[in-house]
């Protein structure tokens, strides 16, 4: 498997070199079953200039340290936060660095069943031979326990409650029973290094609220949107440039337009960022994540280039932002209009004026 043939290579392949370098220089003690020490994993995620390791996440150091300690002390790690705060990316990076494999992933959803998590059977063999280890088809959790690796459970709260609860035994006793088999195969004891990283959306709060018993077995870590304006702006600029290049467009979205975009997103994201002046705003139903901002920036670039062969303007931004923010929610439409009438109108600068003038393009 080489990088060239893959649309999106997993973290352990795209960062293989860095991981190898870290392993080489890693002198610190490693928790049992880990490929790297805690310190090395921290450097892998937050970057280290001395070793030439790039920074892969904008996140508080203390938060990353808490996550590593949770995983090293054998408790499940639950990453919660607004959609688009890079929870999944974080869990992928952690799994790649700690176990060298980010592929043991369970995608939570309404249709997921227990056998997609634990194991199922090869029915031809099952009928032919009866239950045997050969007929057993392991699912990610089984493989993670068997090989001592991290298992990722994405969007955990989307999975039905009974499916969530089948994790209880595995998390506390670290053993999976396979009642169909007998002898040594009836019990699968987890090897050192096995653990679970789950992610959940705060927007899904209350959809399938986790049971108290399951919550107790996880340590919660909230992933916040990027706090620093400049960092977010840089991230949006670089990511959107990459996306535009992939779409075959050499024209980047101009800096002032990106500033408008990021400021609008941060304003509408509301309550978390206090002290932006003029008071707090109401939270929108729509997701105002950095990832979404990158998509909008991409859309602005694509729109301007393919429709008129020019770079993006504030007017393009108004068109694209409308589609992202409003979706089908009448309330959000009102809030966005109010934002333009009352906040955008008062900002200084050419680009803000142009942005305000284009407000009739809002849906």
């Amino acid at each position, binding site marked *: 498997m080489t990088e060239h043939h893959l649309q999106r290579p997993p973290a352990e392949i795209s960062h293989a070199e860095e991981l190898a370098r870290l392993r080489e220089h890693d002198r610190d003690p490693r928790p049992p079953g880990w490929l790297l020490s805690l310190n090395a994993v921290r450097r892998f995620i937050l970057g280290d200039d001395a070793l030439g390791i790039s920074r892969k996440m904008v996140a508080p*150091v203390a938060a990353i340290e808490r996550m590593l300690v949770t995983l090293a002390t054998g408790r499940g790690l639950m990453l919660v936060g607004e959609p688009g705060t890079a929870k999944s990316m974080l869990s992928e990076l952690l799994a790649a660095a700690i176990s060298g494999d980010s592929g043991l992933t369970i995608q939570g959803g309404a249709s997921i069943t227990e056998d997609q998590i634990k194991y199922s059977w090869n029915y031809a063999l099952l009928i032919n031979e009866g239950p045997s280890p050969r007929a057993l088809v392991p699912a990610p959790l089984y493989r993670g326990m068997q090989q001592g690796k991290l298992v990722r459970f994405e969007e955990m709260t989307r999975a039905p409650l009974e499916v969530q609860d089948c994790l209880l035994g595995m998390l506390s006793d670290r053993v999976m029973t396979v009642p169909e088999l007998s002898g040594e195969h009836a019990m699968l004891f987890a090897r050192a290094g096995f653990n679970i990283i789950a992610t959940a959306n705060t927007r899904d709060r209350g959809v399938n609220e986790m049971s108290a018993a399951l919550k107790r077995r996880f340590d919660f870590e909230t992933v916040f949107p990027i706090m620093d304006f400049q960092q977010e702006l840089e991230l949006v600029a670089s990511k959107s440039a990459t996306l535009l290049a992939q779409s075959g467009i050499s024209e980047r979205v101009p800096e002032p337009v990106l500033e408008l975009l990021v400021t609008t997103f941060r304003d509408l994201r509301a309550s978390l960022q206090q002290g932006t002046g003029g008071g707090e*705003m109401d939270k929108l139903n729509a997701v105002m994540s950095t990832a979404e901002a990158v998509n909008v920036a991409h859309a602005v670039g694509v729109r301007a280039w393919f429709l008129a062969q020019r770079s993006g303007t504030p007017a393009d931004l108004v068109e694209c932002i409308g589609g992202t923010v409003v979706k089908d929610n009448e309330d959000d439409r009102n809030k966005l209009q*109010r934002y333009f009438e009352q906040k955008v109108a008062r900002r200084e600068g050419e680009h803000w004026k142009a942005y305000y003038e284009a407000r009739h393009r809002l849906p």
Partner: protein
Amino acid sequence: MSDSPHTFDAVHQSSHQSSHQAEYAASSTLDSRRVEIIGVRHHSPACARLVAQRIRDSRPDWVLIEGPTDFNPRLDELFLPHTLPLAIYSFCSAGERLHRASWSPFADYSPEWQALQVGRECGAQLAFIDLPAWHDAFADISNRYADVTDSEQERLASAYEAELGRQLGIEGRDALWEHLFESATLGSETSESETLEPDAASATASRRDLAELSARLRQYFINLRGTDPGSASNQAREQMMARWIAWAAQQGQQQNRVLVVCGGYHAPMLAQLWPSIEPDLRQDSAAPATPNLNESIAGVSDGSIDSTVATGSYLLPYTGKRLDAFHGYASGMPSPAFQQAVWEGGLQQAGAQLLQGIMQRLRQKKLPASTADMLAIHVRTQALARLRGHVQPLRNDWLDALAGSLVRDALDAPLPWTYRGPLRRGTDPVLVEIMDVLAGDQVGQLAPGTPLPALQHAVSRELLALDLQPPLSASRTITLALLDTADRAKSRVLHRLAILQIPGFTRLSGPNWAMSGERSEQWQLSCPLEQQAALIEAAIYGATLADAAIARLAEQLAHSHGASALAQLLNRAAQAGLPAFSPGLLSRLHEAISSESRFEVLGQPLAITHGLYRHGHELGMADAPALLELLQLTLDRLLWLAEVHGSVSAQDSNAHLAAWQALRLLLRDAQASAGLPLGELPVARALAVCQRKARHPQAAPLSRGAALGCLLSVAHDDQQQADEIHSAITLLSALPAAALGDALQGLLALARHELIHVPAFIATLRQLVSALDEADFIQALPALRAAFAWLPSFERGELAQQILHLLGSTASPRTLTAPLSKVDAETLARHSWREKQAVAILEHWGLAN
């Protein structure tokens, strides 16, 4: 963790390495045997330990401490058997124009406190060497021992800390500080129990640690300060301190050994400054002169200094909560209870104590905290400490572990220890409790015999001067005409007493708002037994009535949240004539208003601010730019919230209309003051908001009516007014019966005067009401009644006249406005039912028309 990034070397490698450092080193080698300057962080247990140890080791002749020089003659008061924390409260007030007050708080673990105690124990001469609190340099400083006192210092400190943090991989001022300085392996054995024959080896080890700590602190502060001269006020303070050092070093023409304890920010500059102080000053036998009080405040108080200047310093009890960094911006080390425990028993014991306290608290409050959690917290703390390279877990390690193990949900606000200032809204309840346990509930207590401020005398003098003494036996009632200057002064004094909750001064009637139209006030004066006791207790707030009332309001300010409560405080301050109180309040109001989420709440702040801005002449508040700014902010927020289209609940409807009325008043005023600052308020934008609100189909009928009424009421030409009346008619006709009354209520509350004389409007109204069928009418009735309640009885009479005119009747309007006959409701209902039956029978036989 050999190659952990958390090594101290980064401090040395970091920025600002300059020639300055060399100068510092040179000056300190020259006099290093004689003058030792220890730059500390206020309220740091590690620094306190260092200071105590250095004084014991070097036995200096003088111990000089950053603190108010005017307290020097009374230093002995500090050595009475007090219970800490306590503070030196210094104040200066010159009438209404100038008021300054600042606190210098001490806890057991304050380096300054240890310097005092150990210095005296070792027989050194003690002195405070900083400027007094009334000096200009302290104009904006309320806490002498805050980490950061002005924006220049803040800029410098945060730049250095950010860079250092980046290199070490640590974020946050407190986390960085603890990692660098509080984590040294200093056991408690080096502090108090020196005399108990400590184990020689460990004593040597701990001395080595202290030497390392001392070197680190010095390097850290040299890098932080660089060659920055600092703000004007910091320069003035450093000049004063340097003069003292130079004087003490040469005093009596001897070569004295001097140890200086001061904020780390000042230390490098002092080391540079003092050797250059003029030699003739050094020969002086008297201590450096304190600047002259009158000169210093002459500029501020218009030169009209008279005998009313009151100044003084007193020891007052302080509380752990106030020491906490989470209490406000201007404070020192966070989590005083934790620091106290570290001071008393070392890091390990403090951690155990902390965990125990938190578990107890959480169980008390019925929050989840099981034995398994406790185990998990323990393991995580140790692991985090190891990962971060700490020998003993530090405060941040404990907190991070607690958050990870106890919080079982997504957070809505960042963890409290990752930012400065009060807890944010939406902080998890578990975290709120944890921070509260860490703040502790220590309350200081003064030793008996400590001189207290003479509030009692001041109050009785003021009462005598204004002829307000309460009679000893019975009570007397006085009426004050508020437009009269003398009476107004009396009213203020009484309001100040009321703020201090002194029994015996009760207001019987009077205006609710400081600037309302009511013109008289009634007070009952009596002299209950508790009065004197209350005055003694209130003495901790200050020495004069005005000071005490301000301090009391400031205390209330700390506990008040929400725009409405804060506006009430502003109102009380205005009633009591205390403009000096307002700056802190205004900034809090700013914050509260920006984060207010309900339209109704903002009406009162807007009305109070507007009133004070227009009419607060006597308070010196009229036309104040700060008030205008606040007014602007409130208007902005109000307009922003006006466009939330939700229903208005019945109990909110009065407040809702009051907010619209306040808005209307302000808009009218702004329209009329073209060319004045008030005229620059965004009237056009506000009117556009009203337009949109009045038209929006999703808006509550009450608000639509109110918005329209507001437009009508501020319309300045007839054409515009006619248009708005037309839209009012359209609005009422378009609404369903249930909403009719609400919209009408909004309209009449805001524009009854404009509407009640318009025949077309009255005709439509009559038509709409008479078109209602019985069920609809009953549904609309309560709101209609509420709407007509806005009309004074005279206008109700006029309305009745118009209705009768429309009906072609010549009866007196009294027939419509007279109260119903005194028949009870049941009888009325019975009769009405009979009437209905009769009509039904007539209809049945085809006799009804």
